[in-house]
C-alpha cells in the first residue's frame, strides 16, 4: 500500500501538482439477513483501490482505480493532474489549504471481539432465533433480522509528509417486525430502524443488543399498532426518544453545520444552510438546554477515527453551546475561507471518492432527567419513538419526521399506543422549544448518510438522549 501511494505522489509532483495526497484502501464487508427464519442474504464483499487527489494551479483533480498496481498509481496521478489543469481554467479563486503539521501515526478501532472472526453459523443462528421470536401473531407478515460489519484499512500519504495507517471497524444489527391486516401495514424495529444500531467496535455490540430477547416485544407492538388510534393533529408537548433525537440532530444540526454546504459547494444537490457565517457566535440556535459537539474522539461512534481523510487529527469541537451556534464542521479548503483551520471532518466513502466534510459524532450532551421523570413532569403530551420517515428542506429549516410508534402522555404517565405519528417545525424554533434533555444517552449510528456528486454514502453517529419539546405541530400528513 505504502509503495503505491509513494509512487502516485512522486508522479503527481512531477506532473505539476503543488499538493497531492493518495489513499490506498483495502476494505471488506459482511452482511447477513434472515427473513421469516430463511437466510435472504449471506454476502461478503472486498475491495482494494487507490485514489489520488491533486492541486494544480489552485484547482482540484482526482482520479481513482480499483487496480492497485504501480502502473495504475502512475496513471491516476497523471490523470488527476490533467483534470486539475482543466478545472483551473474555470477557477476564480485559487484553493489554499489550512496549515497542517504532517502527521505520522496509526489508529485502530478498539474492538473487544473482531466481528469477522465470529463464526458465520453463529450469526445465522442468532438471526434465525430472532426472526422466530418475532412470530408472535398471525398478523406478523415479515420478521427480519440482520447483522452488518465493515472493515477499512487505510493508508494515507501526502506530499506534505503525512503518513498514516488506520484500521476502522464498524459493527451492528437489528430486527424489524412487519404486521399487516386488510387495511394497514405497521412495523416496529429494535433497537433502531433502517437496519438497527451500529457502532465503531466489534461483535460486543451485537451481544449487548440481545436481539432475540427483544423480538417479541417489537412484534407485539407492531401488531398493536394496527388497531391503535391515529396520532392526533394539533399542538402538543412532545418527548422524542433518543434514537429519534439522533436523527433530528443529524438532519437539523449536523448537516447545516457543514461548512462546504454553507459556502455553496453542495448547492445543486444536498443544498446549502441557514447557518451562514454572520450567525457564527450570535444565533440563538436552541434553548440553553441544547449543547452540541462534533466529537471524532468519542468512544464507539461511527464518526470516530484517528485522522480524517486529509490527515487532520480527530478533534472535539463545540457546535452549539448553551443554545448559541458557535462552530462548524470544516476542512482544509473551507476553514481558511472563514479564518479558521480544519477541525478534521473530511471522509470519503471509498478509495474511489474524494473526501467531503462529513459529520463525525454530533453529540447532544445529556441532561439530568430520567425518561420517567420527564414523562411525569410533562403531564399531557405525546412520546414518539424510532424514526419512520424524515424530510427537510435544502437549507435545513422546514422538517417533517414520522416515527414508528407513539404513546399518549396522560396524567404524567405513558398511556395509549398511537400510530402514524408525525411532527413538523422550523429548525431554530424547534430547538428553542427544547426545555429538557434526559440522561438515557446513546451514541446512535447512522449508516447511510448521503452527500456529494457522485453521491457518497457515509456512516456517521449522533449521541442523543430523550428530550422534550414544547408546543410542537403534530399529526401532519394525514387527513385534511
Amino acid at each position, binding site marked *: 500500500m505504502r509503495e503505491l501511494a509513494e509512487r502516485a505522489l512522486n508522479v503527481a509532483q512531477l506532473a505539476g501538482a503543488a499538493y497531492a495526497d493518495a489513499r490506498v484502501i483495502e476494505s471488506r464487508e459482511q452482511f447477513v439477513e434472515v427473513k421469516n427464519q430463511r437466510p435472504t442474504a449471506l*454476502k461478503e464483499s472486498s475491495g*482494494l483501490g487507490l485514489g489520488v487527489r491533486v492541486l494544480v494551479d489552485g484547482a482540484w483533480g482526482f482520479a481513482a482505480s480499483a487496480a492497485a498496481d504501480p*502502473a495504475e498509481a502512475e496513471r491516476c496521478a497523471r490523470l488527476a493532474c490533467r483534470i486539475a489543469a482543466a*478545472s483551473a481554467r*474555470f477557477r476564480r479563486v485559487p484553493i489554499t489549504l489550512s496549515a497542517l503539521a504532517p502527521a505520522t501515526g496509526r489508529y485502530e478501532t478498539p474492538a473487544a471481539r473482531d466481528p469477522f472472526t465470529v463464526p458465520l453459523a453463529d450469526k445465522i443462528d442468532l438471526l434465525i432465533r430472532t426472526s422466530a421470536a418475532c412470530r408472535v401473531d398471525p398478523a406478523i407478515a415479515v420478521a427480519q433480522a440482520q447483522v452488518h460489519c465493515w472493515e477499512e484499512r487505510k493508508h494515507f500519504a501526502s506530499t506534505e509528509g503525512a503518513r498514516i495507517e488506520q484500521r476502522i471497524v464498524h459493527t451492528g444489527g437489528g430486527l424489524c417486525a412487519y404486521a399487516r391486516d386488510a387495511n394497514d401495514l405497521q412495523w416496529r424495529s429494535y433497537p433502531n430502524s433502517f437496519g438497527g444500531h451500529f457502532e465503531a467496535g466489534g461483535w460486543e455490540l451485537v451481544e449487548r443488543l440481545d436481539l432475540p430477547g427483544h423480538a417479541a416485544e417489537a412484534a407485539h407492538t407492531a401488531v398493536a399498532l394496527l388497531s391503535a388510534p391515529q396520532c392526533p393533529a394539533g399542538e402538543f408537548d412532545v418527548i422524542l426518544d433518543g434514537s429519534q433525537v439522533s436523527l433530528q440532530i443529524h438532519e437539523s444540526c449536523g448537516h447545516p453545520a457543514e461548512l462546504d454546504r454553507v459556502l455553496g459547494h453542495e448547492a445543486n444537490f444536498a443544498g446549502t444552510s441557514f447557518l451562514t457565517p454572520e450567525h457564527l457566535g450570535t444565533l440563538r440556535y436552541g434553548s440553553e438546554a441544547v449543547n452540541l459537539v462534533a466529537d471524532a474522539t468519542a468512544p464507539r461512534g461511527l464518526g470516530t477515527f484517528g485522522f480524517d481523510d486529509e490527515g487532520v487529527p480527530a478533534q472535539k469541537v463545540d457546535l452549539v453551546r448553551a443554545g448559541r451556534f458557535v462552530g462548524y464542521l470544516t476542512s482544509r479548503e473551507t476553514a481558511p475561507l472563514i479564518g479558521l483551520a480544519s477541525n478534521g471532518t473530511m471522509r470519503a466513502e471509498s478509495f474511489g471518492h474524494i473526501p467531503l466534510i462529513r459529520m463525525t459524532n454530533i453529540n447532544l450532551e445529556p441532561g439530568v432527567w430520567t425518561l420517567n421523570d420527564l414523562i411525569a413532569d410533562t403531564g399531557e403530551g405525546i412520546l414518539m419513538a424510532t424514526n419512520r420517515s424524515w424530510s427537510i428542506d435544502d437549507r435545513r429549516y*422546514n422538517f417533517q419526521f414520522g416515527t414508528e410508534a407513539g404513546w399518549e402522555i396522560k396524567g404524567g404517565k405513558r398511556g395509549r399506543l398511537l400510530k402514524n405519528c408525525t411532527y413538523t417545525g422550523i429548525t431554530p424554533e424547534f430547538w428553542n422549544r427544547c426545555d429538557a434533555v434526559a440522561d438515557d444517552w446513546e451514541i446512535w449510528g447512522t449508516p447511510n448518510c448521503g452527500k456529494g456528486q457522485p453521491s457518497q454514502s457515509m456512516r456517521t453517529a449522533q449521541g442523543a438522549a430523550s428530550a422534550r419539546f414544547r408546543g410542537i405541530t403534530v399529526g401532519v400528513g394525514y387527513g385534511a
Partner: protein
Amino acid sequence: MSGATTALGVGRPPIARDEAKGLLGEALAMSAADATLAVLESRDESLTRFANNEIHQNVTGLRHTLTVQAIVGRRSGIASTSRLDSSALRQVADRALALARLSPEDDALPEPAPPAETPEIAGFVPATAACTPEERADAVGPVLDQAAAHGMNAAGALSTSAATLAVASTGGVFAWHADTYARFTCTVRGADSSGWCDRHRRDWRALDVAALGATALEKAERSRAPAEVPPGRYTVVLEAAAAAELVAFLALLGLGAQSEQEGRSFLSGKIGERITGESVDLVDDAFDPRGFGRPFDYEGTPRRRVALIERGIARGVVHDRRTARKAGVASTGHATPPPAVEGPLPFDLVLATGDQGLDQIIAGVERGILVTRFWYNRVVDARRTIVTGMTRDGTFLIEGGRLAGGVRNLRFNESVLDVLARAEAIGRDAEPTYFDYLGNTVVVPALRVRDFHFTGVTRF
C-alpha cells in the same frame, strides 16, 4: 490483470465483451459449487462539479464489482470483490462456496436462469465514453460566466460515464451489455431565489448545456423576491422532473413482486382493481428509447415489458426468479443485484404521455403553483403511498394562466396514487430521470394536478 486500464478519451466500454466472457468464465471455472452465477458490473465515471461560478471538484474513477453466487443443493452464498486479478477471482469463488456450505437450506431458492436469447439495446455512445475533462470544462464554462454576468451563482455537475454489465452462469448463460450515460444538472442562485435544470441522456452532446444553464438562470431571475402563499390545496403544474420524483416512489412502494407477496405493497390484494385515475398507464419498459434500459437482469433473464397500471387498474408487478417461482409465473427479468434483499424492482418506469405542451398546461390554471422540482421526498405511509417533501429551485405562483412570480418553498404531503388520479392534464413530452440511489429510470411528462396538498411553508 484485465480491464483496469481503460484509457481516457478512447471511447470504449470499460470491459469488452470478450474480456468479460473470459473473466467470468475464469471465475466460474474456479467454482466447485453445483451451480454458479457470476455478475460483473463496471463503471468508468467522470464528473466535473462546479459551485460559486467555478469548478470546485473534478473526479474520475473506474470501478468494478464482480459478484459470485455459489449454489450447493438448496444453499446459496454470495461474495463480491472490486478486483479482477486471478487471485481475487479465486478468493471470491472460494468464499462464495464456503458461505453456501454454511448457509441453511432455502426451500424457496430458485433454479438458475436458463440460457436465453438476449435482445439488443443500442445504449453505447462512444462520444460519451470518450468525453475528456477539457470538453466538460469547456461545456460548463459559459454557464458559469453567464451566471456571474447576471450577479448570480451557478452550482452543478456535468457527468459522463460508460458502463458494462455482464452475467454468466455454469448453466450456459452469458449476457453482456454496454451503455453510456450523461447528465447535466445546474442550480443558479440569486440573493433570494433559485432556478434549476436537469437533463439525462446517453449522448452527452445531446445535453445542450448552454441552453439548460440559461433555463436555470431565467428561473432564478423570474423567482426573485418570492411571495409567501399559505399552505393549502392548490392546482399545481408539476414539471417532468417533479412528477418523476413522485412516480419513482411507486417502484419502491410496491411494484416489485416481493413486497406484493409479503403484503407490504400498495398493490397487495389489489391486482385487477382500480387504484388510480383512468388516464394513468404505467409500464416498465427497458426498451423505451427515451430511457436507459438494459436488456437483461442480474440473473441473466431477458427483460420483458410489463404493464403495471392500465387505465388506472393495477395489472401486475415485476418478477425475478424467486418471486416468479412462488407466483407460478415466469420471471420478467427484473432481478436486482445479488442478494436482492428488496426483491425485483422496476428499472424503467414509463408513464404514458398526454397531448398538451407545458405552456398549455400552465395556461389552463387560473390560480395555482408551478413546481420545478421536489426535494427530500420520503415515505410517510407506505400502504397509502403518502409521501412528503419540499419544493425547491423554482416554485412559482400561476395566475390567469401565466407565471406571476416566485413563491417561498412549500412542504407537501400527498398520496402518489391520488395525485395521479387528480391529474387534469398530462404533458405530451416526457423526460427521462435516472435516480442513481435507486438505480432506476422514470420517463414521465409534466402533469397538472388539482387540489395538491401543501401542508407547510419554509422561510425562503
